[in-house]
């Protein structure tokens, strides 16, 4: 069964309709960028500096208070949506591959963005950028995106989000929304990469994908664990107590992800692979409607 079949396309279309009817004005391109410029919607004032266009001076303020302030307007422009898709080997692990799930979610979100006349770029990464699809626009580009996603595979010997973030920042000319789909099993920590994006005025959105087996393993006894990315092995004796400790540690990891996102007002979605991708997207839409 192909990853993106006609049934998948139907569900994409359904999601697109739902997003327009229910969340009009609250999604992607219909949201305003935070870019200030020559728009018509007032944003705020700033001190006048020599060389500024005198047309934007607020004469009323000057008349009342004698302060020379310049009116700033929010510039209306298309939203750039960058998808960073984790294609490390850890994403390909498990009976229900996280990578397939992540590609489906990526496709769904990309379709919605394209339908709203946003620009979409997809980058798959592991220890470095594996493959990238440049910015594209228009609903008719969905097939190209699907084709691109379908051609991707897991590879690499590590996960380094920091390097990929730097690469993205260097490569792109405009900031925008960065949707990161990953399990965030970054050997060196994912926070540095996300922070880098934040510092560069990108708006990150994290989608953490994991399997139930990863959260609740059932192995007991003597076992040799092999990490699929690095190939490192550990001979361990897993007891019931250790299992309980592992589950607690994993929950702490997920909670640390939430705490991190809340701290920096980053939207975050955690999901397992055992729910349909469209349900996840709808859940994200509802969450967005509540928070925005």
């Amino acid at each position, binding site marked *: 069964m192909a990853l993106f079949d006609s049934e998948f396309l139907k569900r994409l279309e359904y999601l697109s309709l739902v997003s327009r009817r229910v969340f009009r004005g609250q999604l992607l391109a219909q949201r305003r960028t935070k870019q200030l410029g020559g728009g018509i919607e007032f944003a705020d004032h700033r001190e006048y500096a020599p060389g500024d266009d005198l047309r934007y001076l607020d004469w009323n303020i000057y008349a009342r208070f004698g302060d020379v302030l310049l009116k700033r307007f929010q510039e209306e422009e298309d939203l750039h949506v960058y998808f960073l898709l984790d294609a490390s*080997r*850890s*994403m390909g*692990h*498990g009976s229900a591959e996280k990578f397939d799930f992540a590609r489906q979610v990526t496709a769904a979100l990309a379709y919605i963005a394209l339908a709203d006349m946003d620009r979409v770029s997809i980058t798959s990464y592991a220890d470095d950028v594996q493959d990238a699809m440049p910015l594209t626009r228009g609903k008719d580009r969905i097939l190209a995106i699907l084709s691109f996603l379908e051609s991707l595979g897991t590879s690499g010997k590590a996960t380094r989000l920091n390097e990929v973030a730097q690469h993205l920042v260097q490569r792109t000319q405009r900031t925008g929304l960065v949707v990161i789909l990953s*399990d965030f*099993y970054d*050997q060196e920590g994912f926070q540095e990469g996300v922070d880098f994006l934040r510092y560069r005025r990108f708006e990150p959105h994290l989608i953490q994908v994991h399997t139930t087996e*990863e959260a609740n393993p059932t*192995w007991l*006894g*003597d*076992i*040799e*664990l*092999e*990490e*699929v*990315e*690095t190939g*490192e*092995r*550990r*001979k*361990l*004796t*897993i*007891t019931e*107590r*250790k299992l309980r*400790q*592992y589950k607690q*540690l*994993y929950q702490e*990891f997920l909670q640390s992800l939430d705490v991190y996102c809340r701290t920096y007002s980053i939207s975050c979605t955690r999901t397992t692979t055992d729910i349909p991708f469209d349900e996840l997207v709808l859940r994200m839409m509802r969450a967005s409607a509540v928070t925005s």
Partner: protein
Amino acid sequence: MNLLDFANPVGWWWGLLAVPIVVLYVLKLRVRRQPVPTLLFWDRLFDEKRPRSWWQKLRQLFSLLLQLAFLALLVTALVDPLWSWQRQRQRRIVLVMDNSASMRALEADGQSRLEMAKAAASALVRSLRGRDRMAIVTAGGPPRVIIGMTDHQRTLLSAIERLPTTDGPTNIATCVELANRLLAEHDAETDRGAREEETDFMRETVVLSDGCFDGLPELAAREHVKLYGIGTPLDNVGITRYQVRRSLLDAVGYQVLLDVTNFSEEPLSCRVELNLEGELIDVIPLELEPGATETRILDHTTPKGGRLVATLDTEDPLEADNSAVAVLPARRRFPVVLVTEGNLFLKSVLEAIPLVDLRMTAELPDAAPGGGILVLDRKVPAQLPAGRILVIDPQEDCDAWKLGEPISQPIVASVDTESPLTQHVRLDNVLFPGARELTFDSDVEPLIQDPLDQPLLARVSRPGGDVIVLTCSLEKGDLPLRIAFPVLAKNAVEWFQGNSGELRPAISTGQIATLEVPATWPDPMVAGENSANDGAPFDDTDVTVEETEEKDDGVVAVAEDAKDVAIVEQSTDGAVQNLVLWSPLRRTTPITATNQQVTVGPLLETGLWTVRPAEREGVTQETTSSQQATNLSAANSPTSTSIRNGTDAESADADADRLLDVSIACNLANESESDLRPRGELESTDALPLLSVGGHSLWLYLTCLAAGLITAEWWLYQRRIVG
């Protein structure tokens, strides 16, 4: 130490279990591999335990070594190694178990001394090694070898468990002699074909007793004899002597001899109740000083017979001596036929004698009444009829004597004071007017004679029954007015009946008794009808001696342990009767009587032992099997319950049946057994020569330890503390 031999060398094969243990260990080292998306969390989890990593590396090897060590322990326990000193010093033990009456005493914890001794003996048996052997001898009553030299522990334990309680006396000294003989015989058997080093046994006689017997210090000093005490000194009061007999002076009187002893350090008040067949006869209050014996001789009168039971009303540790039983012979009424034309003196005298059923007639009968006496006044037939006859003033000749001339001076010159017929008779200045010379044809015993040695009162012996003849006219003299006359009449009647002072002695447990049995056992139905009228016992002296045929068809079902009840001595010649001996606990033993005598014993149960004919028991055996739990009085009537219906009929038959039996009372009556205080210092059973603590061999504890450690290792493995 040199390891010479193993009790169970086959056990080494269990060592092969090490192979699968090692194989499983190797298989365990080949752990399965599990790919995971990241080791981040696992590393963080196990990095916390990094300081113990050296243990993690060694723990699997340690686990293997632990398992192999446990296996080695188990295999060692299985082969049961015998060190040189053990092999050369194998034990040969004769265990003397005291199951006498005093061992039935209950200790403070409610456990009897015999049960405590059994527990100690079982511990000793369980401590035996493979080459040790033991025999068990009981010391209650005659020494008995319960089980010979064997090393089969299960058999020994079973024998100890089934060891019977007895009321017999302690017989430790004889048992020790028997034990020595057993050890000597075993040595002789072993010497034949045995290697030299195998004959160096450790011989010992272990006695488990409460020490309630005399000669304890001498016994304890003997070589190879080890005495161990059971129980604690206990206070007790008991009946130490109890007998009953018919009075010598009174036909219906009886005397009871009773001894009650207080075997304690405190004075005691108690009562003794006497019951004759359930009917209360007397209550005797007693005040007993410490160690004192109260002796009472009690006189009572009754023609009835039966079981006379004395019961102490105290509660003490030993019940066997709190009651005693004796057989009181019954006195039955007997017929006396007076043939006279009318003699008031004679009639009055005979009527005044107890138990006499007097019938007067003027016609001479053909024979004396059965079981009774014929009294002839003046009239004498030419041919005296058979039976016991008293003739007063004979006026005619007969086949026993010829009448002569009247005696001119019928003065009493001499009286045979030795004869029971003339005892207590004073005939000073008494004339026997009308006396005539008598010439006897057969043996005669003159009892009263005149100065010319002419018999005035004589006893004539003859095959058909003795005759007493008094030549004196009662109407002419003053003899009827003298006290001597009723005394003479009473002496004659009681001599004819022959049961004056009858004694059926009660024996003590452990003694042997010889019983007289009737040659012919009458039908119980008839006997029941007779006895229901007068309560008289069956009198074997009335029975005509007949030729008794040996009966082989009297099939009797006997309990398996019947041979434990009594040892019966039997002779092989003479007239033989097949009989059954019933114990107080309703156990039966077939016995054989020869020449109307049977010797039974030693009797080891207190109570009433009865002898019955085998053919009767064979008929009623089906019914008795369902009645074994009943008490003695009910159990004595198995025949009647199978024949008749109705309570009255059963009761009558029960009496009849009991009366038909020949019984003997058996009581403890043993001061040595009733005194529950040991006669010397005894070692506690805690010092029994067990091979290990708790009464088991060391290998058993090793096995338990190994099993416990294996369980711990399994738990540690499940907890992943060891690999």
